[in-house]
Each structure stands twice: as C-alpha cells, then as structure tokens.
C-alpha cells in the first residue's frame, strides 16, 4: 500500500510538472506567434473567410454575364428573352 501511494505521489508530481511544462510552452508559443505575425497596424475589419478563388470566380462570372448580355443583344430575334436557368448553370 505505501508503495502504491509512493508511485501515486510520483505520478502526481510528474503529471503536474509536465502539465505545467506544456502549458508554459504554450504561453511561449503564443507570445512567439504574436511576435512573428503581428496583427496589421490598425485593427483590420474582420476579414470574412473569402478564398481568393471566389473573387476570381466573380470576375469570370461578370465576364460571362457581359458576354451573355452582348450575345443576347446580337441574337435578339433568335432568343427573345433572358434565360432564367443560366444563372444556375453559372454557379460553381
């Protein structure tokens, strides 16, 4: 029984020590991260997660929309009205 308890005490000491060690490391890591990658000078407006491709995509869709518009103007007799399904097809 005393042996068990001794083992327990050692586990407790070791466990607490390593736990403090790891959390202490995390403190350092956070400081390091903040130091290497500081926030932009003024507080930036919270940048919503918009991947670059989205704007890429938007650019293309605008181009496509323009192309459709031109094409519609040129082919007006053949295609009398805008196609409501087109928007759907342009979706990614």
């Amino acid at each position, binding site marked *: 029984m005393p042996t068990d308890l001794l083992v327990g005490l050692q586990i407790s000491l070791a*466990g607490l020590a390593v736990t403090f060690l790891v959390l202490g*490391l995390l403190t350092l890591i956070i400081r390091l991260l903040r130091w290497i990658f500081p926030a932009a000078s003024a507080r930036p407006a919270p940048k919503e997660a918009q991947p670059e491709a989205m704007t890429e995509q938007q650019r293309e869709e605008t181009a496509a929309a323009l192309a459709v518009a031109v094409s519609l103007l040129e082919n007006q007799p053949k295609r009398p009205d805008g196609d409501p399904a087109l928007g759907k097809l342009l979706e990614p």
Partner: protein
Amino acid sequence: MQAIDLIRALLQAPALLSWQNAVMIAAGLILIYLAVAKDYEPVLLLPIGFGAILANLPLTGITEGEGLLAVLREAGVANELFPLLIFVGIGALTDFGPLLENPRMALLGAAGQFGIYVTLLLALLLGFPLRQAASIGIIGAIDGPTAIYVANKLAPEMLGAIAVAAYSYMSLVPIIQPPIMRLLTTEKERRVPMPYTRRPISKTARILFPIVTTLVVSLVSPQASPLIATLMLGNLLRESGVVDRLRMAAQNEIANVTTLLLGLAIGGTMNGELFIRVETLYILGIGLLAFVMDTVGGLLFGKLMYLLSRRQFNPLIGAAGISAFPMSARIVQRVGQEADYRNFLLMHAMGANTAGQLGSVVAGGVLLALVTQILGG
C-alpha cells in the same frame, strides 16, 4: 402448447428484473430528470439515462451481440472514435482568441487540473489499483471526452460511472464553484479590477496556433496526441476560414450525431449487476472531490499570481482554469461583479477557461502515459 401457455412463456421479463436493474432504471430516470428539468448537460445525460434504462430491461438483447447498444459501443467507444469526433466539433466551436490575447492565462489551465492528482492519491488510499485510481482521477479533468478516452483505455469497466460523473459535475459548476471562490478569496482580492484591452491577433497567428499546439503537445505527450489533435483540427477548420463546409459539418452533423450515439452507448454499459457496487459510490463521491480540488488548485494559483503581480491579478480568474467551458468563466464574471459591479473579468476568465480545456487534455494524456509506463515496466 396452447396460446395461453405461449403468452405465459412470453411474459417472463418482469420476473427477471433484478433489484439492481430496478435501481439502475431509477438512476436512468433521475439522469433524464436532471437533463430535462435541471438542464444538466442534457445532450449527454438524456441519452445516457435512456441508454441506462435500456441496458437494464431483461431479455431485450440490446447490449449484447449485434444489439443496438453493443453495435454502437463497438463502432465508436471501444475504438475511441466518438469522443475524438466530438472533440473536432468542440474545437470548431471554441474561440481561443481570449487565450491568445492573454497567454499568461495558460498556466491557470495547468493549475485547474490539481484535482486529478488529489483524487488519484485518495483512490489509491481507498485501495483502488493504480489503473482504476487514475481513471477515477481523470474525473478531475471535468471534461467528458477526455474522461471517456482515458477511462476506456485504463478501466473500461468504470466507463459509465466516470462519464456520468464527468458530465454531471460539469453541470454543477454554477452551484459548487461560487462558495469555494468566496471561501478562498478575500473581498479585497475579489475586487481587484482587471482592465481589458482587446489586443488584435493576426489571422496567421490564429491559424498557426492549433497547428503548433498539436505539434508541441504531441511531442511532449504522445498519448495526448489524438485528443489534442482532434480538438485543434476542429479549431483549424474554424480559423482557416477556407473550409466552412467542413467546419459546419464538424460542429453540427458530426458533433450532434456522435453525441447522441455516444451517450446511448455509454448508458448501455450501465447494467445494474456490474454498476451497483460500492466502488461506484466511491467514484461518484471522489469525483465530486476532484472537481472541488480543481477549483481550489486554480484559486490558489490565482492567489499566487495575485501576489506575484503585486495585486494586479484577480485570483477569482483561477477558478476558470478547469475545462467546463464557458460555464466557469461566466461564474468568475458573476462572482467578480458581486464584489464590485464595475468588474469585467469575463474575457480574462475566458482565456483561463480555454487554457483549462487544453490543460485537461494534456493532463489526461500525461496521466495515461505515466500509468501505462509504470504498469508496463
């Protein structure tokens, strides 16, 4: 055989209901009552309670062979899949911003694990073997998935009681913490004002934090790796900002479905014949002590920081170093405002609270490693 004999043969189940079954059905009903009427962690205690009822109804076969609860136990508890998936969801929901703004709060997340070791020692004193004592100690992590993960590896026969204790005591935060906080701190300490100035954190730092944390914790404590990795994966899904589909899947579909099935499966381990023994009462009792000692440890460390900081640090914040997120941060805010209505400790306490989540995982992994090493060597 006549139809009446058939019917008689059919109605055997009530006669096979042991008193242990009856007690456990009552326990299941109490858990459901606590979940519904008292709102004690209902998303887990309600399925656990229902599972406990099912596990104690005779002749249903629901916990054996290909019975539903056996299938769920095999699919997600035995291999630890469910608690880890839940951690992905928790990580996706957790904003570590307050900790990134106040990195010194991290140490409080270590102090808040104090109860684990007190409990472990007490359980050894009471005669539990080491692997069981450590499993009881892990209740002091006050963190459901961590407790389930560790207990399932070290003492699966205690899984039900430990899970119930971990989740129940998480719910008791608003009841248990305030008196301890008032007892261990002076009015003067509680009134220490801590101005909060929001410090902007760059997106890069936010994204790197979960990755680097995974690397460091895994290298120092490999047995904690699955836990920390899933928690941090969820957080990376959140902070990266480019995989919202996955983030939503993690925090909704994965977390909800897994929580329901995990609760049922854990309830399904609570068969009366196995569950009703004096050890279970010990587990529940010592578990409560673990929780108290966590709070004590956090507060004492808070008082140390109060002294080291020349009375610029409000020691109440130490009580948030446990992992019951965000309940204990709220309690700190409330008790702090009782002392001085102008006190605004919430954001500091949130930092300590998220650190407590990390500390619980680390402590769980370290405990697992230490016990495995001692028992193996």
